[in-house]
């Protein structure tokens, strides 16, 4: 029984990681309908930002890097939107190919700049301990990621529901033409949406340095999971993403505990496929005329 209880906090922490990597994608994919394969590389950009800051900030690099990575990854996303993606709006399948190509370019660029082997980002010393609970232990790094995920969700929620810009963003998503004739500069809203979505990927990238590798191909490890969460949660739905991430985290944790990691992946996929048969729109649906 005790080992089983241990899997609860583990499931929660896997859910937090999933949520963090998927949050940005609910903007770029969920809100704007861009199948953004480069999302993983924005995560990578965040990780490398923490690495770059290490020489300046030392052990606290991870903390300092959070806002910086948001800006760096956000700027990359903004550039992508300005230079390429905006010419492809309304053609989601073309954005898939476009952003896939961009992701390959970014990976190779990272390989050329930082080298192919992984680099190390040192975690702050106060994040190296762990708490014991339910007979198991939960590292501080995991708690930190959970807290960060929660903070990001609250921030995104407040932004979408409590700010003028957020309201414009929702207006454009729900009905672009109507928003445009009402005086919303939709192009500018698109830019901002892409900036925030990519920036959140950067934040996730910084957090992931605490528990995972930092190298040119890390984006590819997270991109599929990020899409799973967004699709299962319902496109553009914040609470859908939260529930889907936690549910998938729990499912993953217990499935892996009872079987093994490879089979757990299969189980997660089977459950999602079955779920999407019943609810092709995901957990929550937003009624809109977008993406007809």
């Amino acid at each position: 029984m005790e080992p089983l209880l241990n899997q609860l906090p583990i499931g929660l922490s896997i859910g937090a990681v999933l949520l963090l990597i998927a949050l940005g994608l609910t903007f770029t994919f969920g809100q704007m309908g861009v199948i953004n394969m480069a999302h993983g590389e924005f995560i990578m950009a965040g990780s490398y930002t923490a690495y770059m800051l290490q020489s300046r900030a030392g052990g606290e690099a991870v903390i300092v890097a959070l806002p910086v990575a948001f800006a760096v990854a956000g700027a990359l996303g903004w550039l992508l939107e300005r230079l390429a993606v905006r010419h492809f709006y309304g053609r989601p399948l073309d954005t898939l190919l476009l952003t896939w190509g961009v992701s390959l370019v970014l990976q190779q660029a990272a390989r050329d700049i930082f080298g192919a082997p992984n680099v190390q980002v040192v975690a702050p010393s106060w994040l190296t301990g762990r708490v014991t609970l339910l007979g198991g232990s939960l590292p501080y790094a995991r708690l930190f990621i959970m807290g960060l995920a929660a903070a990001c969700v609250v921030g995104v929620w407040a932004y979408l529901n409590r700010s003028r810009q957020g309201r414009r963003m929702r207006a454009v998503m729900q009905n672009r033409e109507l928003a445009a004739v009402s005086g919303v500069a939709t192009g500018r809203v698109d830019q901002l949406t892409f900036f925030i979505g990519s920036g959140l990927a950067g934040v996730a990238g910084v957090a992931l340095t605490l528990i995972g590798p930092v190298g040119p191909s890390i984006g590819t490890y997270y991109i599929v999971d990020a899409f799973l969460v967004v699709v299962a949660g319902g496109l553009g739905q914040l609470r859908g993403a939260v529930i889907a991430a936690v549910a998938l985290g729990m499912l993953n944790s217990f499935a892996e505990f009872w079987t093994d990691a490879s089979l757990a992946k299969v189980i997660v996929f089977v459950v999602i496929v079955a779920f999407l048969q019943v609810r092709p729109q995901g957990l929550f649906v937003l009624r809109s005329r977008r993406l007809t």
Partner: protein
Amino acid sequence: MRKPFLRPLAAVLLLPAALLTACGGESKDKAEAGSGGNTVKVGILHSLSGTMSISEVTVRNSEQLAIDEINAKGGVLGKKIEPVVEDGASDWPTFAQKAQKLIKKDKVATVFGGWTSASRKAMLPVFERNKALLWYPVQYEGLESSPYIFYTGATTNQQIIPALDYFKEKGKKKLFLVGSDYVFPRTANKIIKAYAKANGMQILGEEYTPLGNTEYSTLVNKISQAKPDAVFNTLNGDSNVAFFKQFKGAGFDAAKLPVMSVSIAEEEVKGIGVDNVAGQPVAWNYYETTPGATNAAFVKAFQAKHKGAVTSDPMEAGYNAVHLWAAAVEKAGSTDVEAVKKAAAGLSLETPEGKVTIDGANQHVYKTARIGVIQPDGLIKEVWSSKEPIKPDPYLKSYPWAAGLSS
């Protein structure tokens, strides 16, 4: 060796490559291959671009160093060695194409190359069909012995079995096996389980994770519940980083629970972070710190050319391959493939890892197994060795407990 790859893509590309290489059939004119004029041409075929380049370029450099050394002493048979360098581009069909090109067009006397098992498997039919020679410098999963390949890296009984001997000696009786989910770890763990059964050791768990997996909290929980004496780790690449970070995060270190790794060398330690792996054991045949005048000279010569570089096991095996080939050519008095093969059987050479001898029967080399411990400075210090070179046994025929494994 074992790096993940874009397999579906490779499979698609393999078809035209196979057709292409299948066309160059005639191979009559290869006696005294590569020795026209005043030079002897040899091929160097590693990935100089793509994912594998970071590893393979280092081997190319050490092979180049060996060629320079031989040329400085007058070359082979009085002729200078002229390397023809080709790029395998981290793509297995490209390896097959470039091998064909080196053999047929450049008419090289021999080829040094490859790293991943996939690249070796792609080149193998090309070399066998053309009756040409390949020197492969990386430890691998065994169960292969081509008459046209010399394997200068370790096979399983020179790396995995000695690592188990070390655990047995240390009284580690309960093992937990962790590996990436593909052929090498599964082959290795088959061997480990057979060994454990024959030596009164217990396997408490055997877990595989998909290539590139980065989530290890559940696995670490399973390990801490199973309470093993030691972990045997055949994870590949980036997964090692996630595993060790999360293993350390859960409160484990080398003193509490040693983790034996077979794919972590000096270069990988940097990416994982020394803090996370300091004190953990690894199994190889050579470390930069291996004592001996030959190694001191090798490290010095290499670092004179490549500042700040470390010398690793595969680099040393590549360096040895060139010297072994040159010695065999001198002994044979010819660069003819069959003559070189004959001369190479039983050939001994003093190398950075110590004395190595080519086993004529399977064309692997006798190698000394070494267990090292990762130091706080990132280098690896030897703590145990097999004392003398171990006879290579790719099919584990000389181990009664391994009967049935190779079938």
